[in-house]
């Protein structure tokens, strides 16, 4: 150890290339587009590579890629583009009905969640206390067509929390502001009347009673306020679009979000008064849907005769409780009037909106697998990974890449904001250079493990923005520089290469969309190392697959755990709300727990009748990130029907006492056999983890009341089990219940008992011969409590 002597130094900022694809996967014949921004380089080289292995350390085969000739290979011009967060609704107004402020009557309800633009407190499971995104603006635009640069148009805003109306008068910015800022987490009614005939503007605020207000009316009596100003607004025609939830600022041809609102807005209407009558210009209902299924996607309905429908940008949170929410029904499809609200965030970002730099029409002869557009320039390198799906000719093995989980963890930066980051991993986090780059680019948005600037949880993941945690060489701060997500699943990819096993790549969104028909031709489906988030369609498809003779190799941990949904119209978008049960980094407020894109209630599948044990024999038991352990064989591993699994492995041999992640195959997040939660009666429990430390704590869903002593040395349920179960119909599953498992495959150049055992299973599972079922389930069922 060396002593601290020299002064501290700043981190050097290198030139950067960033980018993203428009989708995760494409079939031969389909096109995938690439979107690139350069910080520094005026040009870059683009080439197509096949990704074979990610982890760069000496403990594995190193980073492996193979160049593939493609139509986009070559030098490209480097241009820097802005990635601007901030969600809003934009209203197309071709007849300029909303342009002129004269005679306008604006009515809306608002529920500010960060009225003063600075947050303090202690949020979520990790105790987030710091916002490394920096300070926000004191202005938050509720609605209007205000152009921040030219100061033209009009807008209803919060300025330092105070309701304020802005307008332009003879080239001068005018404003009318109420005296007091609004309270956070309280509903208010706001009204602006531009009485042109009287030459006055009236601005009124009235607090509203609501079950979701932070305080009761009698605990915090709030008073209405109003104010009047003389005014003669200019009837100018600003270029800026009319928006709800953010203002606009021009950036070339684009109008970016500006001064985004944090909180809910609902019940918005605009009228125009003349001396003779009042005409409704627009009357938006955020709880109504055009769709037969009632889902609230990105179209916003105007119920007025003018039909000035809007479109959401950057995925504000819909299906949230509005100002008239009674708390009696929590399904937005049943009580749309109670869900007339949208929750906007000034840091929402689900589409950077960069122009297409180049495209790839996937050739018919390009084998299915993991690829990337490799972008390089002096001092800069970036990979834009994607998956090529199978064409007409399929392999017998498919790898289901855990793209939903990749999106959930995308751009995770908890280590910089949460007091408890170190506690949850039981050691000081190890950061990667990419983590620092992320800190310099807050505009790339947060993971679904984090909170927004206003303290509410992030619930959307998207492909269409730079995701630095998706870089194939990325190391996870919470796993001792180990692999996580795509880099971890590349361990499977390279192991399959050593097994001379061609595979087809499929993604979570593919399986969600296509269901069982996508799997029906495969003999074996291999999961990623951490398929934590899945949709109902995926679970249904996988269960049907194993029941119809398919063989599932679940080579991960904490799998099939919690609910996500893919937007049926924009599958690059994934929704992940958090319920109030199970292990979770934060949770959605009551009334906001149902996914807008599917209607699914948020939460863990175990609490919705579909525990992972039913599908894979094991389910989430514990997590810990200090060290990993090995497996020791159990009695079932010596059963004749399991003999093929242990060919070449000694009877008392410890399995996986090595690996890239924590030095063992059993660890990080682990699953165990639980017949009480549906591990099938015919499941053979082949092996269980060696001793884990007390850094491994019993999963929250197993802790009904807080108790001491929930670490591995005191709780029998804190363990990882390897199970095998042949099912009626010839199918079955082999599950390892550990995220660290696949990071042990490459040890000693794949000459080890983890690779041997996994290879034995793969080879047997690829054979047509049905798996042998020896247990009569109806006679042997003896379920014990978990």
């Amino acid at each position, binding site marked *: *150890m*060396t*002593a*601290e*002597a*020299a*002064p*501290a*130094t*700043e*981190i050097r*900022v290198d030139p950067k290339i960033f980018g993203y694809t428009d989708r995760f996967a494409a079939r031969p014949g389909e096109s995938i587009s690439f979107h690139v921004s350069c910080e520094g380089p005026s040009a870059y080289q683009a080439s197509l590579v096949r990704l074979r292995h990610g982890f760069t*350390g*000496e403990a594995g085969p190193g980073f492996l890629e193979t160049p593939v000739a493609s139509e986009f290979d070559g030098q490209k011009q480097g241009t820097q583009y802005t990635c601007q967060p901030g969600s809003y609704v934009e209203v197309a107004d071709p007849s300029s009905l909303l342009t002129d402020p004269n005679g306008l009557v604006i009515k809306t309800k608002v529920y500010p969640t960060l*009225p*003063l633009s600075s947050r*303090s*407190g*202690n*949020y979520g499971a990790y*105790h987030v*206390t*710091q916002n*490394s995104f*920096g300070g926000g603006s004191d202005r938050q635009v509720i609605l209007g067509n205000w152009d921040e640069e030219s100061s033209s148009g009009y807008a209803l805003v919060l300025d330092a929390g105070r309701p304020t109306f802005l307008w332009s008068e003879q080239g001068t910015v005018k404003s009318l502001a109420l005296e007091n*800022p609004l*309270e*956070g*987490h309280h509903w208010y009614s706001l009204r602006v009347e531009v009485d042109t005939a009287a030459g006055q503007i009236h601005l009124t605020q009235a607090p509203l009673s609501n079950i979701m207000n*932070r*305080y009761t009316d009698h605990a915090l009596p709030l008073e209405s306020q109003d104010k009047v100003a003389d005014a003669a607004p200019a009837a100018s025609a600003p270029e800026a679009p009319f928006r709800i939830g953010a203002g606009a600022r021009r950036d070339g041809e684009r109008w970016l979000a500006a001064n985004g609102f944090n909180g809910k807005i609902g019940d918005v209407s605009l009228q125009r008064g003349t001396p003779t009558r009042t005409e409704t210009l627009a009357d938006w209902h955020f709880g109504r849907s055009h769709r037969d299924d009632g889902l609230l996607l990105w179209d916003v309905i105007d119920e007025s005769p003018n039909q000035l429908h809007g479109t959401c940008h950057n995925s504000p949170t819909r299906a949230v409780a509005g100002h008239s929410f009674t708390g009696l029904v929590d399904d937005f499809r049943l009580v749309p009037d109670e869900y007339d609200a949208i929750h906007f965030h000034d840091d929402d970002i689900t589409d950077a909106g960069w122009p297409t730099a180049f495209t790839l029409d996937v050739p018919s002869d390009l084998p299915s697998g993991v690829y990337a557009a490799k972008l390089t320039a002096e001092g800069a390198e970036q990979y834009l990974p994607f998956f090529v799906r199978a064409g007409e000719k399929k392999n017998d093995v498919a790898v289901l890449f855990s793209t939903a989980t990749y999106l959930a963890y995308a751009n995770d930066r908890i*280590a*910089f*904001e*949460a*007091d408890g*980051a*170190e*506690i949850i991993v039981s*050691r*000081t*986090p*190890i*950061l*990667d*250079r990419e*983590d*620092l*780059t992320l*800190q*310099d680019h807050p505009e790339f948005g947060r993971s679904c493990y984090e909170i927004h600037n206003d*303290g509410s949880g992030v619930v959307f993941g998207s492909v269409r923005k730079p995701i630095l945690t998706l870089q194939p060489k990325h*190391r996870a701060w919470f796993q*001792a*520089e180990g692999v996580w997500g795509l880099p971890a699943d590349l361990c499977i990819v390279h192991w399959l290469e050593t097994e001379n096993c061609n595979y087809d790549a499929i993604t979570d969104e593919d399986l969600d969309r296509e269901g069982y028909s996508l799997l029906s031709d495969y003999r074996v489906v291999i999961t990623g190392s951490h398929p934590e988030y899945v949709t109902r369609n995926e679970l249904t498809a996988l269960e049907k697959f194993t029941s119809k003779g398919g063989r599932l190799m679940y080579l991960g941990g904490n799998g099939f755990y919690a609910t996500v949904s893919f937007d049926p119209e924009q599958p690059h978008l994934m929704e992940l709300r958090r319920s109030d049960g199970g292990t979770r980094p934060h949770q959605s407020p009551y009334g906001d727990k149902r996914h807008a894109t599917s209607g699914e209630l948020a939460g863990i599948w175990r609490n919705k009748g579909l525990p992972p044990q039913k599908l894979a024999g094991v389910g989430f038991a514990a997590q810990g990130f*200090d*060290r990993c352990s090995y497996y020791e064989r159990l009695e079932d591993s010596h059963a004749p029907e399991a003999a093929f699994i242990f060919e070449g492995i000694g009877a008392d041999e410890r399995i996986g006492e090595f690996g890239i992640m924590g030095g063992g195959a059993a660890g990080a997040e682990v699953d165990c056999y639980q017949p009480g939660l549906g591990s099938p009666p015919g499941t053979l429990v082949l092996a269980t983890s060696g001793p884990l*430390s*007390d*850094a491994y704590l019993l999963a929250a869903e197993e802790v009904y009341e807080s108790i001491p002593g929930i670490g591995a040395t005191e709780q029998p349920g804190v363990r990882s089990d390897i199970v095998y179960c042949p099912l009626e119909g010839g199918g079955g599953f082999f599950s390892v219940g550990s995220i660290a498992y696949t990071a042990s495959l490459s040890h000693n150049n794949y000459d080890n008992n983890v690779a041997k055992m996994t290879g034995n299973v793969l080879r047997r599972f690829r054979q047509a011969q049905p798996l042998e079922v020896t247990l009569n389930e109806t006679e042997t069922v003896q379920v014990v409590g978990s």
Partner: protein
Amino acid sequence: MKARTSLDSADQSTKWPNKLLPNGSELMRTSADRSSELMSIFEQRFSSRLRRDFTDEVAAAYDRSPLGPHDDKTARVVRALGNASINGKEVILNLGPNGPWGIGRITVGAPGNLVLLPSTFYTYENALRGVFALRRQNFLES
């Protein structure tokens, strides 16, 4: 040392009716004041316990095995230090694919929101020892 910044996530802006002190001046108590008062009591007790626990033997136990397992007293001290406020906290930065490792301090506003301290370590365990030594030094000086 400061373990946390507040007790809950309530906005700190809520104003309650003013009360008069005996001398006639106004006392503006807020929810933030109350949370802060409660936290300071906790921190006093927490810090007092930590000072009792943070012995040379504990420091030696950590140095022997930074990743544990630790006895209860050492584990409590390690958690206390690790649970400190994130601002200014030490983290480890990998400087290469197989090490070495450096120590950085989280500093919002610096490039990467991190300031790199000068030491370089050739094992991860030594980097952990380096972090612990810095925290102990800060603790003893606080």
